[in-house]
């Protein structure tokens, strides 16, 4: 009995320590997801949180400026101007029409400053087949390739 109580006390200390660590890690790295259309309606305190926003890169919108890269993300007709200020080069897959996930903060002027950009090639790999006359429509394919990061990322580089 005595040993069991000691074990429980020890476990309690361990679990409490881990919970505290988890909380610290959580506050350091929590990131909100928002859609572009949500951004306009966010209450003021939430506008300053670190967040992730996804959308498609508008064709022809990628502009290389001094020290940053500007582009426009689109989703369901809404647009978001983004400035990428991170130091890593953009992923290979980042190009016109690509599906991109940006991480950073919203600016007072309504623009978005991104520190990280992940992108997935718009065409995916299962490109629509061409070559056969009257080419058949692809059956609705779910790419979900388990081990297939057909997507570059600047994330995770520490």
């Amino acid at each position: 009995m005595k040993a069991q109580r000691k074990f429980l006390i020890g476990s309690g200390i361990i679990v409490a320590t881990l919970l505290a660590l988890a909380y610290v890690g959580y506050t350091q790295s929590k990131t909100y997801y928002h859609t572009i259309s949500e951004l306009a309606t966010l209450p003021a305190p939430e506008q300053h949180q670190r967040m992730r926003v996804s959308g498609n890169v508008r064709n022809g919108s990628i502009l290389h400026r001094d020290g940053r890269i500007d582009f426009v993300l689109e989703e369901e007709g809404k647009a978001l101007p983004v400035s990428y200020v991170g130091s890593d080069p953009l992923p290979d897959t980042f190009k016109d029409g690509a599906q991109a996930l940006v991480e950073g903060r919203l600016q007072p002027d309504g623009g978005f400053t991104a520190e990280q950009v992940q992108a997935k090639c718009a065409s995916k790999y299962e490109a629509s087949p061409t070559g056969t006359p009257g080419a058949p429509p692809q059956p609705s394919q779910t790419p979900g390739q388990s081990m297939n990061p057909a997507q570059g990322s600047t994330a995770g580089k520490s």
Partner: protein
Amino acid sequence: MDIFGSFALLLALGAAVYAFGGGIAGILTRRPLLTKTARNAGMAVFGLVTLAVATVVYAFFTDDFSLAYVSAHSNHTLPLYYKFSALWAGQEGSLLFWTWLLSIYAFFALFLNRKKHPELMPYVGVTLAGVQIFFLTLNNFVASPFRVLAGMDATGMMHVARLSDGSGLNPLLQYYEMVIHPPILYLGYTGFTVPFAFAMAALLGRYPGEKWIHITRRWTMVAWCFQTVGILLGAHWAYAVLGWGGYWAWDPVENAALLPWITGTAFLHSVMMQEKRGMMKVWNVWLVFVTFMLCILGTSLTRTGIVSSVHAFAESSIGGWFFTFLGIILLVCLAAWFKNRDYLRSDNQLDSLVSRESSFLFNNLILLAACFAVLWGTLFPVLSEAVTGNKISVGPPFFNKVNVPIALFLLFLTGVGPLLAWRKTSYDSLRRNFAWPLAGGVIAGAVAFAFEFREFYPLICLVLSVFVTLTIAAEFYRGARVIASRDGTNLLTAVGELTMRNTRRYGGYVIHFGIVLIFIGISGSAFKQDIQKEMNIGDTLSIGPYKILCQNFDQPSTSNYSSDRATLEVFRDGKSQMMLYPEHRTYLASQVSETMVAVESTPLRDLYLVYAGASPETGKPVIHAYLNPLVKWIWFGGIVVVLGTGLAMFPSRGAALVLRPIAERAWGESVVPQTAPASAPIRRSEGHD
């Protein structure tokens, strides 16, 4: 071809349904014929799924682009071995592959035990068949790899269409490790189904004692070993191909593979408590259940896109099926446990805090904490959205904050646990076993500290690594010395003899040593450096002890891809060491770009060079150089773990001698009493004590 394959799959589903229904009927009516036919149906699933798999492989080899799956993942010019690996490159094929591997495990589980454990095996067969029914339903009706492409001709008639060429295999998957990584990881995922089936069977059939643990120990180790190798291969592939300088990013898919590995590790340790002391029976059963559920969860995470991941961006409708299945498993587990919970009563209680038992308890507690933290962090976006409406994700700082201390505490237990006595450890034995290793660890730490090695966690890791290594070495030395002096052999022969006499124990030590090596390798990441620079020909950059001189840029393009390549000369101490050629390729057919990393790997550090593309501002090529200390130790540690696992699965020499005559006699006769006389000698010599 598609009809043949579809038909084989349909028959396989029929056989699985019979194995399930017939098996249950056999248990209820106690008719041996029903039980036997159900078992044979369960084994037949393997043959039928094999036919379906062979059909898909044949379609890939013959470039049958009338199949949607083949045309989406292959093309004429794809090398043969990638045409084979394309089998698991996409959703439908990889699900079929899952089913196939499961059917292999199920076949051997049923076949090898066909004359043993007549009380247990019918339940095992039913459980395995239940899992197979789920996957075969998906293969047949939800994600069939035999879907054909259809098109309309001029008259508006639908007919089967055949493409002239497929879209090819994703270049990222065209890498030799991608041929072996998915099968090995899948062998891990599917392999945990066997211990699950045995645990479920033992619980439902109220099979006496811990026999099911003896039967499934090797199965669990096989699955665990595959899972370990699968995870490490995945990490190595990410390191070698993705070009971001790291091997682990706490990505949901990586986490998904780690979760069952953690609970599987916990199970492999806590079963010893049940074998030796009859404790933790409920816990063990639930660990197996949870491990299996995490395998299913992991399989679904990679396919459903419920959490966005580097690996899986796509949404798919298959998620509902998986979550329904998970719900059913959970209900069945709860019901089976609730109905038979009295059968799982513990025989003993914890006697002392400084004992083998408590070290196992702490080991399990902390592994479960790690598992919970990783699961929580992985599913947090989904959970937070469900609860608060806000989708919130957590990043690597969360995972590292929690898991680094856990890992170090585990490392500590790795050294301490195996040397503590069961029940209660005396102060004398503590001093005898730990004084020297502890002193060694502290001295190593002090020396490192004196040499400006002062990062907190790596320093702790170093102290513990030295400590654990010394305890392991001392164990080998103590045992071998006794044998050497008695048999008059030299110490090295005695180490071999010692190991072969108790493979389980000494194999376990070898695995622990491999884990130490992996931990050392991981702790190296605290000293990672990287530098990024625009470079023209003649420019240099310095990183660590290396100076890198840019010699040339060229475009060695082929018909398959266009490429930008840098020729970099590496100097150390003013002397030229080697040339490295990082490359950036764009595959023409698919317009997919790929980074070809150039790595110079040494035991101390990897020099990892990436051609990061042209600078947006100046158009000059950008070279990203990383210095990754000790990474090689991780891969080497993985090899040691595999060797140790193989050793631990090998029958001990002493035990085999005792076992053989009894076992052979029992084979021919009635099978029931066979395990009883045999288990006593096994336990004495094979025990992990």
